Structure formats: structure tokens, C-alpha cells
């Protein structure tokens, strides 16, 4: 009688009812939702009022008399700096600027304000620029040229496929956001779920529960049930995140708008996200099972886990280098290395197209390592799960791995 399903069911339900699991599953989407809400509220409070603003100016060149109405800003001429200062102090104008007589040769304008600021507001700068440009060019070039000078270009990039057709995913910084955030969550999920398996097995060994379990089921069934049960819980977690991505994107797009509404997810992103979670979890799970078997207690096992889970997060440390050259041979190599592949491939998918052959090799290497790891982990489990109190030395472990 195969009892794997009983262990699977117990581990799955036991895990998803844990507070830590519920918190980790719900907090990231809630944080994003909260972020959208906070953005809405803050942008509502801080958005500059759409009311008309008057800005004074003193024209010492003598050619800037027209185009004083720029969107919501009205430019009010003053004869002298003193008159403009008086108007500013009495709050008739919000600020003023002086176009000195040598402006044409220097391009320098002196601006006067009453409130400190980091940089001039974009709307004010644009209004002054357009006012200067329009007055300088009036009558010398057609009006359409003046418009072009004011807004010189809009760089519209199109990515083509190898055959010259327009690619489905056009890339861009905005499209990196979802894979970037997903990679961080994936790394967390891999570490969280595989170390939970490690803790669960070590605890069963330390509390001697293992002996009762092994008097009812075989080590193979026990390992399979635990790996699958905890993996299913992890998959549920990633599934919740993945299924909430479109909803959160819609919300963010309608709320924040702008570049978020241009986000396109690669078609295979969600599928690959699930595939890499499953494979990533499995590779870390088999290592965790082996480590739990040879460790005398939970603390030592967790100490070792803090070393071998580093590759799961390592790609995130080098994100800036990855953004610069996503197809560098180094990243290709680490996309194939099984412990870094899951997170790295997800990150690269956000930056660039990952060729199918790289995906195929990466997945094949992961699968091969998982199968090999399972054989070795069950050998360690059989040899060491009931050996308490001392950690076997390396030579002994290697001998047991070799002999089975």
C-alpha cells in the first residue's frame, strides 16, 4: 500500500495552515496593493493645483514680449528687478526671473523664489523654455518648426525578430518590473519552502518521530510525500502571486497609469515561472533532504542551509550587471547551473529574450540533477536518518553515497 498520498496530504494542509506560510503568501500582493493605494492618496494630495499661476519676468534684452500665456502659467512683465521683488514679496506673483542683456550669448536666466526647492518644477521650466524659444524664433521659422524645437523628438523603438517581423515583446524598463519582482519572490519561495522541508525532516529526526514514521512507511514514500506536499504548498503560494499579477497590473495601470499601462509580460513568462519554481524547489528540496539526514539537529541543518541556498538569491545581487549585458556568457553559464538557473532565467526573461536552446539545456540539467540528487538523498536518508548525536565525517558520507 502506497502511503505517499497520506504524507502528502498531511504535509500540504499542515503547511498552508501555518502562520508563516499565510503571511508570506498574502503579504507581497497586499504590499503592492497598499503601494497602489498610497500612491493614489499621495498623488492626490501632492498634485500641483491646476489653477493659473503668475510668474513675473524682467526682460533686459527687449525681445521677449509675446507668448506670455503658457498652459496654466501666465508670464507677467516687470520693468525692473525691484518692481518684480516687490510683487513677489506681496505675493502678487509666485516667482520671477530676469533675462539679462547678455542672455543670447550666455543662455543664463536668473530666477527668484521665496520657497526653497530641490530643482525648478518641470511645468515652470517648460513654460519658461517655450516662452524663450517662441519669442526667439518668431518670424524666423515656420510655426511647425517652433513646435518641433519645443518638443524635439519622441524615440519610438520597435524590436524586430530574427526574421524581421515585429516582435511580440518589445522590452523596455517597464517590462522588467514584473519579472524583477517575481524573481525576488521566487528566490524567497525557493528558500522558504526548501528550508521548511529541511526543518521538518530534521525535527522529525531530532524528536525521534522519524522512527515511528518509518515503522509505518518506507523512507522513499516518506521523502516523496514530504517533498510533494511541501512543494504543492509552495506551488500554491507562487500560483497565488502569479494569478494576482494581471489584477495588480490592471489596478496599477488604471491608478498610476503611465508606463505601467505599457507593461507586456512575455507569453511564456507565467508558464516558465511555474516550471522554474517546480524544478528550483525540487533541486533545493533534495539537497535539503540530504542535509537533514546527515545533520544531528535542526540548528546545524539550518546552518548548512544558509550556505547552499545562497545561489538562489545570488543573481539578484548582480542585477545591475545583468541589466547591462543580459546575454553575457557568464549569465548564460549561470542560467544552466542548476542552483542559480531558476531566479536568473526569470530575471533575464524580463530584460531580454532567452533563446530556446538555453532554456532547454537549463531545464534538462535541472531535471538530471534532481533525479541524481533524489537517488543520493534517499541513500543518505536510509543511512543516517536514525543515527543520532554525531555528524558523520565527509569520507563516511562519500562512502555511503557510493555504496548506496
Amino acid at each position, binding site marked *: 500500500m502506497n502511503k505517499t498520498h497520506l*504524507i502528502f496530504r498531511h504535509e500540504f494542509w499542515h503547511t498552508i495552515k501555518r502562520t508563516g506560510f499565510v503571511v508570506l503568501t498574502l503579504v507581497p500582493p497586499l504590499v503592492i496593493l497598499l503601494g497602489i493605494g498610497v500612491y493614489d492618496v499621495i498623488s492626490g494630495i501632492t498634485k500641483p493645483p491646476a489653477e493659473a499661476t503668475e510668474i513675473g519676468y524682467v526682460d533686459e534684452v527687449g525681445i521677449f514680449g509675446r507668448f506670455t500665456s503658457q498652459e496654466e502659467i501666465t508670464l507677467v512683465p516687470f520693468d525692473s528687478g525691484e518692481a518684480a521683488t516687490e510683487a513677489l514679496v506681496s505675493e502678487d506673483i509666485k516667482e520671477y526671473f530676469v533675462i539679462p542683456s547678455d542672455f543670447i550669448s550666455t543662455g543664463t536666466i536668473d530666477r527668484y523664489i521665496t520657497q526653497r526647492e530641490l530643482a525648478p518644477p518641470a511645468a515652470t521650466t517648460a513654460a519658461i523654455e517655450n516662452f524663450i524659444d517662441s519669442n526667439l524664433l518668431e518670424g524666423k521659422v515656420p510655426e511647425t518648426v517652433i513646435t518641433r524645437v519645443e518638443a524635439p523628438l519622441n524615440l519610438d523603438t520597435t524590436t524586430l525578430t530574427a526574421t524581421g517581423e515585429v516582435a511580440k515583446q518589445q522590452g523596455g524598463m517597464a517590462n522588467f518590473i514584473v519579472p524583477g519582482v517575481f524573481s525576488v519572490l521566487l528566490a524567497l519561495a525557493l528558500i522558504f519552502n526548501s528550508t521548511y522541508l529541511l526543518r521538518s525532516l530534521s525535527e522529525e529526526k531530532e524528536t525521534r518521530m522519524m522512527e515511528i514514521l518509518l515503522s509505518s512507511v518506507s523512507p522513499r514514500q516518506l521523502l516523496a510525500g514530504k517533498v510533494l506536499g511541501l512543494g504543492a504548498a509552495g506551488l500554491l503560494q507562487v500560483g497565488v502571486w502569479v494569478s494576482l499579477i494581471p489584477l495588480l497590473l490592471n489596478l496599477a495601470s488604471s491608478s498610476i497609469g503611465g508606463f505601467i499601462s505599457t507593461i507586456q509580460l512575455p507569453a511564456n513568462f507565467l508558464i516558465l515561472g511555474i516550471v522554474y519554481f517546480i524544478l528550483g524547489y525540487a533541486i533545493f528540496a533534495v539537497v535539503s533532504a540530504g542535509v537533514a539526514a546527515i545533520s544531528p539537529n535542526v540548528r546545524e541543518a539550518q546552518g548548512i542551509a544558509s550556505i547552499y541556498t545562497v545561489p538562489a538569491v545570488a543573481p539578484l545581487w548582480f542585477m545591475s550587471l545583468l541589466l547591462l549585458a543580459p546575454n553575457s556568457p557568464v549569465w548564460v553559464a549561470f542560467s544552466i547551473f542548476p542552483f542559480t538557473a531558476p531566479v536568473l532565467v526569470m530575471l533575464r526573461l524580463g530584460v531580454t529574450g532567452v533563446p530556446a536552446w538555453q532554456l532547454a539545456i537549463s531545464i534538462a540539467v535541472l531535471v538530471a540533477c534532481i533525479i541524481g540528487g533524489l537517488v543520493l538523498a534517499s541513500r543518505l536518508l536510509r543511512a543516517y536518518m536514525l543515527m543520532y548525536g554525531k555528524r558523520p565525517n565527509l569520507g563516511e558520507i562519500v562512502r555511503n553515497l557510493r555504496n548506496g
Partner: protein
Amino acid sequence: MPAVEVNHIVKSYADRVVVDRLSFSFDQGEIFGLIGPNGAGKTTTIRMVMDIIKPDAGDITVLGERLSEDTKNRLGYLPEERGLYRKLTVIDTVLYLASLKGMERYPAEERADYLLKRTGMLHHKGKKIEELSRGMGQIIQFIVTIIHDPELVVLDEPFGGLDPVNTELLKEMIVELRHRGKAIILSTHQMNQVEELCDRILMVDDGRAVLYGNLEEIKSRYKSNSVIVSAGGDPGQIRGVSEKRAHRGYVELVLDGSMTPDQVLKELVGAGLSINRFEVATPSLNEIFLRSVGKNHE
């Protein structure tokens, strides 16, 4: 058909032989005592019987068949080192472990309620294991061991850490299992419990069998040629007695071999003594244990 039949099993770890060509068997309805000093190979032997580890050589038949995953449902095991899922409630623990023994949920719930009530633990069924005392946890483990009504029950040091009331309760339940025809392996250091409960014993030392057989036969094999007498007065010189050893409340008379204990009793009665106690001196199992194991360690 014996409940358990073990033939020449051997188990080694690294280069150390832990169990060395051990053979034994016992029947249904018997309590089989497995005794020996620490590190003698008792737990390793039990783990091999339970199919938790495989012997390097020899074979084991349990309930008439080679152990398989299906046979495990007919066995109950209380290991020496105990532990349960600390965060799980009593009832969830019992039901989960019962399900691993092939029990359906409804019968398992019914039986769990019965056993919890029987052991006075029913009102603790919703508590987490970590809220229980050590002794209570041990009772829960005993319930888990027998909930599926196993045909073979293996108890490794079942009385350690129990108070006298719970020890008596456990003994009562073990004897009840024997009466219901279950085969029981009892591994313990408490020789008085073995003497009280076991029908047959196997004493192991350094992985090898030191003593094996019916407990009464073993004890009579080790009996000394002396009698214990508690009488109202000094027995004086008695024929057939070579030595008198005075103890508190009784005298041990060492016989010279020319007379049987019956004849010595007749002599004592004939001498006009009122006899309160007269018995053939047999060594306790503890003495036999010390003699047998001590001999090997000399």
C-alpha cells in the same frame, strides 16, 4: 506459526558488528522480553524486526511472512526515544498516525475516543502535544502504538518516565493485549517488569544471545541449592544444611546436596518450629542478568 521468527541476523555499522547471528522466535499471545545492557544491540534488533533497517544477513519472518509495506499495518511500535509533532493536537496526531497504519478516519476516531477515555486523556484531545507533560505524551504514544489493533506490538522501554499509576495502567493494558492473543516484544531495563510480564526472554550482550528461553526455565536453571526460611525461633542444627546465612527477617539455608528442600522442610517442622515462610531460593532476573552479562564483561 510463530509470531516472529528471526534466524541468524547480522548487522554491522562501519566495521563494528552490532548484531551477531541472533536467532529467536515467539508465538502469538506471548510477551517476549528483550533485555541486555546499553549498546547490546536491542534497538537495532527491534528496528530490523520492524523493517526500519535491513539486516546484512539472516532472515526475519513476522506474522508468517517476510516484512513488506503491507505487513507494517499489522505492527505497532513504541520506540525508546519518544517524540511527537509538538504543534499538532492530540487527536490530529493520533488520527494522522492511525491513517499511516491504514485506518479509515471514522473507525480511527471511534477507537481514539475509546483509548483516550480508557487512559483518562479524553479531555486533553484538543490540546497541542507541547501542552502535555512527558508522561501524558508517553500515554499518547502508547495509544498511537495500539490504535490500529496490531497483531504484533513492540514496546521499547515503555515504562520509562511514567508515574506508578500510569505504569500500572500500561501494564494492565499490555496484559490485556496478551489475553487477546497479541504478540508483544517488551524491551526494558526494568527486570522486575520483565519478571512480572514476560513469558519468554532473550538476553543479548555485544550483539550476541546470552540467555534465551522460557523465563521460568531460565530461572530454575539459575536456581541455587538453598532455601529461604522465616520461622518463629532459631532452627538450630538441621540435617542436610551446610551453611546458614542470616538476613533481615529470614535465614538462607544452603543445602549440602544430601537432602531435598521437601525433606529440609519436614526437618524444620519436626524440630517444632512455626514456619512463616519457606521457599526455594531462586535468583531474581536482575541477579541472572548481572551474572550473565558481568561474566561476559570480565
